[in-house]
C-alpha cells in the first residue's frame, strides 16, 4: 500500500455506519475469523434473496444486505448471537436518548 492520499472525489461511503460495517467485516476476515470467499458466498446469497422481490440499488439496499449477512454469520458462529446483538443495540439506543446533547454517548461495560 502506498502512503499517498487519494484525490478528493466521490466519497466511497454514503453514511459512516457503512464504512464501520465494511471495516468490521474486513477486520474479522483479516483476523482469520472467516475467509473472504466464505463471506462473498454468504453475501451473494443474501443479495439474491433480497433481490428476488425487486432489483436492489447499489446503495442503501446493498449495505442493508451486507449488514444482514454479517449479523447472520455472527449469530451462526455465536460471536454475536441475535439476542445479545439486540440487547446491546437497545443499550446504545437508551444511551443516545438519555445522554445530554453534546456529551459523549457511552454504554456500560
Amino acid at each position, binding site marked *: 500500500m502506498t502512503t499517498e492520499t487519494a484525490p478528493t472525489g466521490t466519497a466511497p461511503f454514503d453514511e459512516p455506519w457503512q464504512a464501520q460495517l465494511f471495516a468490521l467485516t474486513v477486520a474479522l476476515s483479516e483476523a482469520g475469523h472467516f475467509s473472504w470467499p466464505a463471506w462473498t458466498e454468504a453475501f451473494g446469497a443474501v443479495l439474491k434473496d433480497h433481490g428476488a422481490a425487486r432489483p436492489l440499488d447499489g446503495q442503501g439496499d446493498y449495505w442493508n444486505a451486507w449488514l444482514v449477512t454479517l449479523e447472520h454469520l455472527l449469530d451462526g458462529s455465536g460471536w454475536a448471537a441475535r439476542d445479545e446483538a439486540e440487547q446491546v443495540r437497545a443499550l*446504545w439506543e437508551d444511551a443516545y436518548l438519555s445522554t445530554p446533547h453534546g456529551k459523549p454517548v457511552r454504554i456500560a461495560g
Partner: protein
Amino acid sequence: MPHDHHDHPHSLLPSDPALRVKALETILTRKGLVDPAALDAILETYEKKVGPHLGARVVARAWSDPAFMAALRQDSTAAIATLGISGRQGEHVVAVENTPETHNMVVCTLCSCYPWPLLGIPPAWYKSDAYRARAVREPRKVLAEFGVTLPEGQKVRVWDSTAEVRYLVIPMRPEGTEGLDEAQLAALVSRDSMIGTGLAGAPA
C-alpha cells in the same frame, strides 16, 4: 417557553442500521475478536488512501513501459506489487488489455468483488442488481448507457470477478499522447475505463 437552551435535549438518535453496527462492534471488540486499531487502519485506508488514482498509475506505467506491460501480462499481481500496491487479502489481480479486436468489461455477478487496492470501494452502479444482471446478458446495451459505442468489429469480453480473482481493464492508450509523461497519462485514465464501462480520455 424560554428558548435559551438546546433544541435537542438529548443526543440525536442514529439510524437503525447504525445502531446495529455499533452493537456488533461493541460485542466484537469486547470479546477481542476485532482490534479497534485495526478497524481504524482499515477505515483510513479505504476512506482516504486507495482509489482509482492507484489503478491509473498502473495503466500509465503499462502504456509507457513495454517491460512493465510484459510483466503485467505474465503475472499482474507481481507486476503491480513492484509499484508498491498490493491487496490486503492476497487476492489475485488479472490485468485484461483492451485491443482493437477486444474490449474488456468487468462485473461481479455474485456480489461486488472488485480490485479494491487499485480502484477503492466500487461505485453504487457496480453494486446494483441492474448492472450485475445485465453486464453479462447485454453488455453492448449497458455500454451504450455509459456513452460507449464500440466499433462493429470489436468484441466485448465480460469478466466475472470472484473473491479470489479481480480484474483490472487496461484501456487502449488514446491517440495523440506520445509526448506525455506517466503523470499526464494517468490523468486520462478514469475509474470507469478500468472497469471497462468507459474509455481512456483524450488529452485536453
